[in-house]
């Protein structure tokens, strides 16, 4: 079935070029010795050096990481709880309203979400900083988590929870010992999704950040407005590297897990004498 054809080869090349050409150019120019972004002045890693010494960028990266980890963790917990309620609790007064409200931020323009959060924080007199960014990111990524988790919960056989209750579990134990291990893949992908969304976000962070905290996307955006510097290229290349390493590690881990499972299965199938 796998026959070579010029049509396939061309579309493949074009497709990949379209996707990766901009990034490749970015990576190449990050090693440019020249200060001018568009003029090639020979290979150098000097921009990585200056980047590491750039406190502002490092601070922004640290803020981004903190916001990402904390907000996606809280969003995962809240989103999973919301999903559990919506899938399991059956009918209760206000259910439709509740589920509609959970999904609303999904379709709401980010500008509106950001603006309304800003107004809220000002209204209740909360000082804007890393805490408000975390709150804002939790709010909007929670609904993504709940969508991912509830789609898994819908397919989950209710009788399993009942069996756990029947065998002496409390509701919480049933969730911890039976439901959670089974829906874990969905919860983990929910977390990864929330983390990615948080890393990505520029608009909402711009509304809710204060002078004390700036995220990396905000920092990049504001420096680019003064002109693209080779330093930004270096920073972006590092981000690409981090993401690549993350993806490769994740896939290696899952591959190892599946190999181990296969091995366990083989062992299990061996007849014990």
């Amino acid at each position: 079935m796998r026959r070579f054809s010029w049509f396939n080869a061309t579309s493949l090349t074009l497709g990949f070029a379209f996707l990766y050409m901009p990034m490749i150019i970015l990576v190449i120019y990050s090693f440019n010795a020249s200060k001018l972004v568009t003029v090639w002045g020979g290979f150098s890693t000097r921009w990585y050096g200056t980047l590491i010494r750039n406190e502002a960028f490092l601070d922004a990266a640290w803020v981004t990481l903190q916001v990402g980890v904390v907000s996606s963790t809280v969003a995962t917990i809240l989103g999973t709880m919301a999903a559990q309620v919506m899938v399991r609790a059956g009918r209760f007064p206000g259910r439709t309203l509740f589920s509609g409200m959970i999904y609303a931020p999904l379709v709401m323009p980010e500008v509106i979400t950001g603006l309304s959060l800003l107004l809220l924080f000002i209204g209740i007199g909360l000082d804007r900083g890393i805490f408000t960014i975390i709150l804002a990111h939790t709010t909007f990524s929670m609904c993504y988590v709940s969508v991912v988790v509830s789609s898994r919960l819908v397919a989950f056989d209710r009788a399993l929870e009942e069996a756990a209750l029947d065998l002496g579990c409390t509701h919480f134990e049933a969730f911890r010992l039976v439901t959670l291990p089974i829906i874990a893949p969905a919860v983990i992908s929910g977390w990864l999704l929330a983390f990615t969304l948080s890393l990505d976000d520029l608009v909402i962070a711009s509304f809710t950040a204060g002078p004390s905290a700036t995220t990396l996307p905000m920092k990049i955006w504001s420096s680019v407005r003064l002109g693209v510097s080779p330093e930004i290229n270096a920073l972006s290349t590092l981000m690409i590297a981090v993401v690549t390493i993350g993806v490769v590690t994740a896939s290696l881990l899952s591959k190892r897990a599946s190999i181990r499972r296969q091995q366990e299965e083989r062992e299990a199938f061996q007849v014990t004498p």
Partner: protein
Amino acid sequence: MAQPKPQTVFAPWTDPDAKPLIRFRNVTKRFGDFTAIDDLTLDIYEKEFFALLGPSGCGKTTMMRMLAGFESITEGTIELAGQDIAPVPPNKRAVNMMFQSYALFPHLSVWDNIAFGLRREGMEKDRMNTRVEEMLRLTRLERFAKRKPHQISGGQRQRVALARSLAKAPKLLLLDEPLGALDAKLRQDTQFELMDIQEKTGTTFVIVTHDQEEAMTVASRVAVMDEGRLMQVDTPAEIYEQPATTYVADFIGDVNLMKGNADPKEGFVLLDWAPNQPQIKAETSKNFAAGQELHYAIRPEKIAITAEKPAEAPNALQGKVLDIAYLGNISTYHVELPGGQIVKAQTANTRRLANRGFTWEDEVWLSWTATAGVLLES
């Protein structure tokens, strides 16, 4: 009809002083405006092996789920050992259930599935290991202990579910079609195993089954249900020999039903059931009005089939063999009577096939005694 042998016969339901373990009092269960259980009143006694029998969708699983605590009760009360169970959550009830869908935990091995309830109990490790091994041996799953549920066959899964529900040795065990996926041999072994467990532990079993033979083999009493109502609750022998309604007679086993009008005499009834046919004579203690419309129910194995007219049979009819169903140990003859009615008669195949007495189109005589069948009001 129960023989009075109080020391050996287990029949607490005949004892007015006996305290039932489970008491359904006018229990009704509705889903929306659909009534799944309709005003059900029933006592189940300790150490009983109680079988629920009925067509699909008649409410058997719903009854069990109410006992286990997964379904609320719309009206009425259920008492377990004298206590209203409505406010008791499922994990606090001394009841275990084997689910119709097995509900095995997919992320746990067979061993851990069986040990799950024991761990929750906080049983110490040594005792737990012994108990799980015992359960594995009982259900012949020793070789599969390390596997996950998706790595074993349907029948093996069913045995894991059974082992898991048995492991905690509960006071009341609810089995929702526990043996449906097992082959005949293993099913029979497991049935005897269940009865054995029951004798040893004194656990009360409520078992749902679609298999009448199974109900007959294992049950102390059988409840026949239809559309959320109890049609009859009685010992297997009574249900079989003395069905209360034509529905029960028809549902349990094979039966010939003849409709006719009563002609009551002293101690027996003559039934006019077809023109130009002799009346059917049936002994009965019940009183029927003259001309009352009745059904006469008689089991095929109660009807003898002969070539000559038997000399002294209270009931004898002539007919022609229409069809023969050979079932190995027995054969069922479908005999057509002159009026067109078809009567089934069963004989044990004590001889080899070649020596069999009758074949298609043979003229034969069907005969039976006056006590062989029962009269049922329409």
